[in-house]
């Protein structure tokens, strides 16, 4: 018996001892680095949301032209932005509206936006005018830039219609600081209704780079004349009413590149025309009739295509775009995601055809 017992006792002692040692080593190891030993994803995905909400204080609410108010929204260490960027304002009613930033990009303590009251609009501008008084708080998301200023163009031509001057103003200031070659045509109904007119004219200086056309004085702007003698590779930027943008597109010489900024891409019934979508992997082409979403058309062919909110915010229906220009109408995707994908529940083709990786 004793011959059997001794090794057993020794084994028990050995096992207990090593278990205690292992526990101590483990505890020390965890203490030294609490996250040991799980691997990590090399490029983390979480913690980099597409957009963030900030709550800002309205510190100024002033009229800058007939029917136009300018708001100064103050905060701290605000995200940086480039000329052409816009901000999403989450209005007290919950509505979300986009407004171009028209202040100084160097200022990290405030954002400036200006809005025109649209009497028969969807209520957003009325809310900005009537409810966002000085001292009130407003939630914003962004900024994002759908209308970036190209860096290396030899010369620039801007066409602004009324409140459409807002994204262009910071561009002019930036170009002026750089000493670039630029011209502006600023059109509006009356001089009194055109915001930032004085500043735009001052930026233009004596050299006649800014021409102002008020409908009640000078009639229609001469777009063809403005664009006709532009240098090759001139970058043309236009922001204003749909009619003005169409006119600029029509008058554009072949050697110029056009950049447009639309005010409210989601409301207008126009631009909902028919086109076709090729599903490259399925080897099928489906027509998208006017007024029907890409999702609805694709679902008929691919019944299990994923989607959910059907309003362009949840992101479930995102699909890769292989060819074709997209008219993005979602409110979710980042600029780089928009380069090669779209939310098929709301976005459409700019042209006549899209090719999806589906």
């Amino acid at each position, binding site marked *: 018996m004793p011959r059997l017992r001794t090794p057993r006792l020794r084994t028990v002692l050995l096992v207990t001892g090593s278990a205690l040692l292992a526990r101590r080593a483990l505890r020390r190891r965890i203490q030294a680095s609490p996250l040991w030993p799980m691997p990590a994803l090399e490029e983390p995905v979480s913690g980099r949301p597409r957009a963030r909400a900030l709550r800002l204080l309205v510190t100024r609410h002033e009229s800058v032209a007939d029917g136009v108010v300018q708001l100064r929204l103050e905060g701290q260490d605000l995200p940086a932005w480039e000329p052409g960027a816009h901000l999403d304002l989450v209005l007290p*009613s919950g509505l979300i509206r986009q407004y171009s930033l028209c202040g100084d990009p160097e200022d990290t303590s405030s954002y400036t936006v200006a809005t025109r009251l649209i009497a028969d609009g969807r209520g957003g501008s009325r809310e900005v005018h009537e409810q966002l008084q000085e001292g009130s708080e407003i939630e914003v998301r962004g900024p994002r830039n759908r209308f970036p200023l190209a860096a290396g163009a030899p010369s620039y031509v801007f066409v602004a219609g009324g409140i459409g001057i807002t994204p262009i103003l910071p561009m002019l200031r930036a170009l002026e600081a750089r000493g670039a070659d630029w011209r502006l045509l600023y059109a509006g109904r009356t001089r009194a209704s055109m915001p930032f007119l004085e500043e735009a004219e001052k930026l233009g200086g004596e050299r006649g780079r800014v021409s102002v056309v008020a409908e009640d004085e000078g009639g229609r702007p001469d777009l063809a004349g403005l664009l006709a003698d532009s240098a090759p590779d001139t970058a043309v930027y236009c922001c204003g009413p749909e009619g003005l943008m169409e006119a600029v597109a029509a008058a554009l010489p072949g050697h110029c590149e056009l950049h447009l900024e639309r005010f409210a891409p989601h409301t207008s019934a126009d631009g909902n025309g028919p086109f076709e979508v090729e599903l490259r992997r399925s080897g099928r082409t489906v027509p998208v009739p006017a007024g029907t979403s890409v999702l609805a058309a694709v679902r008929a062919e691919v019944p299990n295509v994923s989607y959910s909110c059907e309003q362009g915010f949840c992101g479930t229906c995102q699909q890769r775009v292989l060819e074709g220009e997209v008219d993005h109408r979602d409110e979710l995707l980042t600029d780089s995601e928009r380069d090669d994908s779209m939310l098929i529940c709301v976005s459409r083709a700019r042209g006549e055809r899209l090719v999806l990786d589906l």
Partner: protein
Amino acid sequence: MSNTQSRAPRPVADERVALKARRVSFSWDRTPLHWIPDDPFTTHTINVLHLLLPAGERWFVHVYKQVLPYIRDDRLREDVIGFIGQEAMHSQAHDEVLPHLKEQGLDPTPYTAQVDWFFEKLLGDRTLPPGRAREWWLMERVALIAAIEHYTAFLGDWVLNADELDRKGADPTMLDLLRWHGAEEVEHRSVAFELFEHVDGGYRRRVRTWALAFSALMFLWQRGARFFMENDPTVLDGKASFKEFYRGGKRGVLPSTGAMVKSIPRYLSRSYHPSQEGSTAQAVAYLAGSPAATAAEARTPNGAV
């Protein structure tokens, strides 16, 4: 109770509501680091949600997109589609808290990068041949989600009723995030289980995946709480312990350990159906008054953007 009744899991009452994603938006700049005043442990124990959910719920969406072709019931498909959108919004909303933590000196990236690995790699689409192996792995993940959803519904129901958090002066925005999320979890609590029953429903798989999900949740949760306590720049020598968790449960600022233990046999019961847990009416009532959910309602009138 009579034994002749069918033992197949079925809803207690037809409380079905149409599921839809709500376009919520939260701003965090006014939320303090310890959003339950003077209680870093409870704050951080709940904060672990922000570490797990962005990657976790993204993974739910990823898996469910693949399971859509297996659904042969239109009503269930509709539920799953609503579920996917809600989960996508949960993931986005919690993700937006993380940069705020970082700005306050508590960088969550070392931990979230691991959670990302866990869901994207370990539980991601493995290199499997098409056919049975791939389907097995898909069904396994569908069952895992059903088990996890048992706990999200449990937590949702808990947070909707956790009045002690209000009494402690917890940050209203954070409470609204947790309760909006909790209410949607309660609202859609049956979907994941019904989907699992529809596409597979094996009892052995249910038990196996429950054990996996439960251990993973416990492992990740205690690790997250320890991580936060040790890295919180305002807490000296911070430690997370089970004892404190137990006490938090007693005080009502955390789920009670007893209730958690009791929920285990319920999920494993053969007659389990998620509708036996929580109250849809309470969830719907909360959503009707939630600041974030009512604002979301205003910005999406009748589907017109």
